[in-house]
């Protein structure tokens, strides 16, 4: 192990330019990945905030008996998807409309707003299908005249989120593959530069595992360094955005460490690839 580590460190000393190049390419691949991740992260945060407002509003028929409404409210509150439900009287509805509309509040003076049951759903049950199921169930009370839940709007929200997730996955994988190829070829150069040494190692009885190890460590170190550099670049970019554009969120510690680990993994896979090919070849 110590021998392998020494050989890996030696590799940096022997080819500093090549090493710097591979760290830089990994850094930029992961930087692109990081930027996208940041966008995805913020979209998700924003969607989460919008989702919090997803609400079902069930309007009651005129002159619905208070006991019936109260009984329905109790039922609805017991639904597994429901976080909370509350009865809104016509007077409260008017108040709310006035508050929301401010200067146009006069319009409502004469209007009679229907009473409603307002339902908030639990975080896991805000997808279109769940919302629709709950709405359907509420509609079965015959004193419920209408159920509104902004169906299209929720549908759109989820589409945006799915597209964002898909695009993130595809782009992320593409970047990761590119990074693997790049580090694979830089390690390959390192392997070729030392092919004589490898041949001699084999003659004196080194196992393939022993020969491979320093290259794997080299690849993992380069990958991790690239990961750290990418993290710094992403962080700097985020700082600029936060200062001049809007308050964007940044990766938490776990995600940041995961990014560095991903860099190390990319380096490891890339070098395992090219060393393996070389060893099989000779």
């Amino acid at each position, binding site marked *: 192990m110590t021998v392998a580590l020494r050989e890996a460190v030696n590799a940096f000393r022997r080819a500093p330019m090549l090493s710097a190049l591979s760290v830089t390419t990994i850094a930029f691949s992961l930087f692109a990945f990081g930027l996208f991740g940041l966008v995805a992260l913020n979209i998700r945060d924003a969607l989460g905030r919008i989702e919090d407002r997803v609400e079902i509003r069930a309007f009651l028929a005129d002159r619905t008996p208070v006991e019936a409404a109260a009984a329905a409210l109790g039922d609805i509150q017991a639904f597994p998807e429901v976080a909370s439900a509350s009865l809104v009287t016509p007077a409260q509805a008017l108040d709310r409309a006035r508050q929301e509309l401010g200067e146009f509040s006069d319009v409502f003076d004469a209007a009679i707003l229907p009473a409603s049951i307002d339902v908030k759903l639990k975080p896991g049950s805000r997808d279109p299908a769940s919302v629709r199921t709950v709405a359907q169930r509420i509609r079965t009370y015959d004193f419920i005249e209408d159920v509104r839940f902004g169906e299209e709007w929720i549908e759109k929200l989820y589409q945006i989120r799915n597209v964002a997730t898909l695009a993130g996955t595809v782009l992320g994988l593409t970047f990761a593959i590119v990074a693997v190829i790049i580090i694979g070829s830089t390690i390959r150069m390192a392997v070729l530069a030392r092919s004589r040494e490898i041949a*001699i*190692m*084999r*003659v*004196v*009885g*080194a196992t*393939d595992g*022993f020969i491979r190890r320093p290259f794997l460590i080299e690849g993992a170190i380069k990958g991790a360094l690239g990961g750290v550099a990418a993290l710094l670049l992403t962080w700097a970019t985020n700082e600029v955005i936060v200062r001049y554009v809007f308050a964007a969120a940044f990766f938490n510690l776990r995600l940041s460490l995961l990014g560095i680990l991903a860099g190390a993994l990319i380096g490891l896979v890339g070098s395992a690839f090219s060393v393996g090919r070389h060893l099989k070849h000779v």
Partner: protein
Amino acid sequence: MSNPHDGGGTVIRFTRVRKEYARTGVALDDISLAIGKGEFVFLTGPSGAGKSTILKLVFAEERPTAGEVKVASVSSAALRARDVARLRRKLGIVFQDFRLLEDRTVEANVGFALEVTGAPRASIAPRVSRLLTQVGLASKGSSLPRELSGGEQQRVAIARALVNDPLVLIADEPTGNLDERATRGVFELLRDINAAGTAVMMATHDLDLVKRSDCRTIEINHGRLVYDSGEGPSRGDGQ
């Protein structure tokens, strides 16, 4: 094929070995031979006869197309890729072109072979210095290969080949790049190593060297064994 020296006494055995290279065709045909513990064997024959191929079969750089190569009781038929390293640790291999690492000292070149086999760190330096003394280079440990003569470089390679106390030292024209004096020196060293119990199998073009010594000689021509001065593990016991 009756050979009285089966089992423990034989370190290398070829049985009806045939070797074809994909690109150049037949290199060896129907080679059978046995080399005993502690023997010194010359492998001679014209260029392209198949000497190097025989040696490569011994250290498993090549596999026989047909027949069996048995080295240190490991059969080529049973040899998996991951067994090769272990097999080579029972052998010492020396080439015409020395194959030293140019950017490392003599000590590092020899120590390298010990590191590779996972020898304990503390044991490496004393072992290296003992080996360098054995090959007559005790004072050259911190030299780089390019600062040595050809003969000295070959001695370093021999020291490296000895790190694992090999059963057999395989030498493919070890004196091919050396002048007469250096050749004699390296040959004497190989004889000393042999005298201490290590079998030596040496391919060479140097017929003078072969004639002057009384070692067993195997001659290959066009991939066939055409002459063997004496089979069996003990030399000079003729038939």
